[in-house]
């Protein structure tokens, strides 16, 4: 079972990202069992929120929150900190939406390179570059992050991810932009050189 936690803020689509990821997992045929849920509650726009995603080749019976994740995905750097780092398993990966490079993040937060792979991608900039924003002109970053995930050791490729995005939003111009963002994110994501 692979456990993934999304960190974001209400309205960024962290929960939707989890849903798309679980759909992509099913499409990949490598993970027939999925379970994705938000941290639940009186969600408000802007409030820090968590979304949990479990994917597995065996039935999933765990219903509690994920305590330690294989992949920690942070859509908004302002919610990132030790609260995130302490919830990553040894050998896990951190995927952070930031303009900074992995090395800086590692130094800033003192992350042990032997334990956690740090990946950064400037998803916000990609969204602005592609004009991929919502009505309030906020950048959409929840779909592009799936492109980054497709680069990971997860057995989900970019094709599954884009198909899942289409399943979620239907065909259309905006969907194409989302896919473009995902592809661009996959290309520009920075992985620290220390391999685990």
């Amino acid at each position: 079972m692979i456990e993934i936690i999304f960190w974001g803020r209400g309205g960024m689509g962290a929960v939707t990202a989890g849903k798309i990821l679980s759909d992509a997992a099913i499409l990949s045929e490598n993970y027939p069992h999925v379970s994705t849920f938000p941290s639940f509650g009186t969600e408000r726009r802007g409030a820090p929120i968590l979304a949990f995603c479990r994917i597995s080749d065996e039935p999933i019976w765990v219903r509690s929150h994920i305590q330690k994740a294989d992949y920690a995905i942070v859509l908004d750097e302002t919610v990132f900190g030790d609260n995130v780092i302490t919830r990553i398993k040894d050998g896990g990966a951190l995927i952070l939406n930031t303009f900074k490079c992995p090395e800086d993040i590692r130094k800033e937060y003192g992350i042990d390179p032997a334990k956690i792979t740090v990946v950064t991608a400037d998803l916000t900039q990609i969204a602005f570059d592609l004009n991929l924003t919502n009505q309030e002109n906020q950048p959409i970053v929840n779909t592009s992050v799936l492109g980054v995930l497709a680069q990971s050791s997860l057995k989900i490729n970019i094709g599954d991810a884009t198909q899942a995005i289409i399943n979620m939003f239907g065909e259309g111009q905006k969907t194409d932009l989302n896919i473009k963002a995902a592809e661009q994110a996959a290309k520009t994501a920075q992985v620290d050189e220390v391999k685990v």
Partner: protein
Amino acid sequence: MPERKVITGNHAAAYACKSAGVEVVAAYPITPQSPVVEKISEFVESGELPNTQFVCVESEQSAISAVIAASQMGCRVFTASSANGLAYMYELLCWAAGSRLPIVMCIATRALGAPWSVWTDHQDAFSVRDVGFMQQFVESNQETYDTVLMSYRVAEDPRVYLPAFVSYDGYILSHTTMSVQIEDDDKVREFLPPLKHHLNLTDFDNVHSVNPVTPPGLTIRPEGNTPGYYEFRYSMQKAHEYSIEIVEEVAKEFGEKFGRYYGNGIYKSYQADDAEVLIFAVASVASESRGVVDTLRNEGLKVGLISLKLYRPFPIEHLRKAFSKAKLVVVFDRDVGYGVEGILCAELKTALYAAENRPKIRGFVVGLGGRDITADQLIGGVKLAVQEQEIPEVEKNTHVEFIGVHLEELGFKKEEF
């Protein structure tokens, strides 16, 4: 072709209604149930449910009233609610059961106020245990979909004619996305043929007067005597008692048709065959317990799980059999019978009182108001019960034990006493 969809529990329930071809739906939104009816209204709007009437109502009480009225007209109906909305329906729930209407209703379980909470526990579902509905708990979204279909089949069986609840955990299932197989409409139709109701008030050739004031005694009249309230209720209790075998029968037929079995349709067991210690729980608590069983087995403890599916009628005979070899039963309740103990625990004790094998029963309350239930908490509970099973004072304890209450942080310190 059956279709595999990645959907939430609420949407699984909505898809079940679509597959069942419900004719009238009325519901009032309440967290965490709202998306069920939102999805059904989408189906109606888009024309995917062309023969379904969606009734907009102003409250839960009106929702169940509309559904009762429609059911009395011979329609297959559906509604859903949670917590305080469900409590607001209470009067009419008794009305639905007393009229023996085959209504199927989903409960996305949620804690009752006060204090206000939108998170899950099973208090609301257990609070309506005595209204006369049948009640099933589920552990996954696929089971929600399947159980709604099975519930229609049982409720509409001429040998039963009782309304039924399908309860799934708010958020934990209602808002959790899982993969669900949606069956072919034709195949579902074979399993669940169109409703042939015992009652159809639009059929004027067959005049009924439903639920007039019914005196304690029989009404003696030349055209034939009519039953008193007592006989009505006697018949309802007997309908419950004899419906258990029908639930089992329908579950078996469902399994043969669709290839999915949920234990024997009454309860699901996990590693229970040789278990000395059995965990007894429903819904989310039961599914969380499965991992706990694995962990404890690895440590050498012979632990198993009985996950109750059919809660009303309470399958006493089945439970006596299920616990016939156990030495110790640990019951985890996500509810409290205030002033007594966990409701499930109390009922299990009642059921096993006359059993040949009477295991020791230790009950714990967990996860009220959505407090996350972790495997560690459950493991702690089981271990404690195992450790202390021989201590008579523990067995006689009348104080209910809660796991995972944080009192220290609120300034309550035990050392001070």
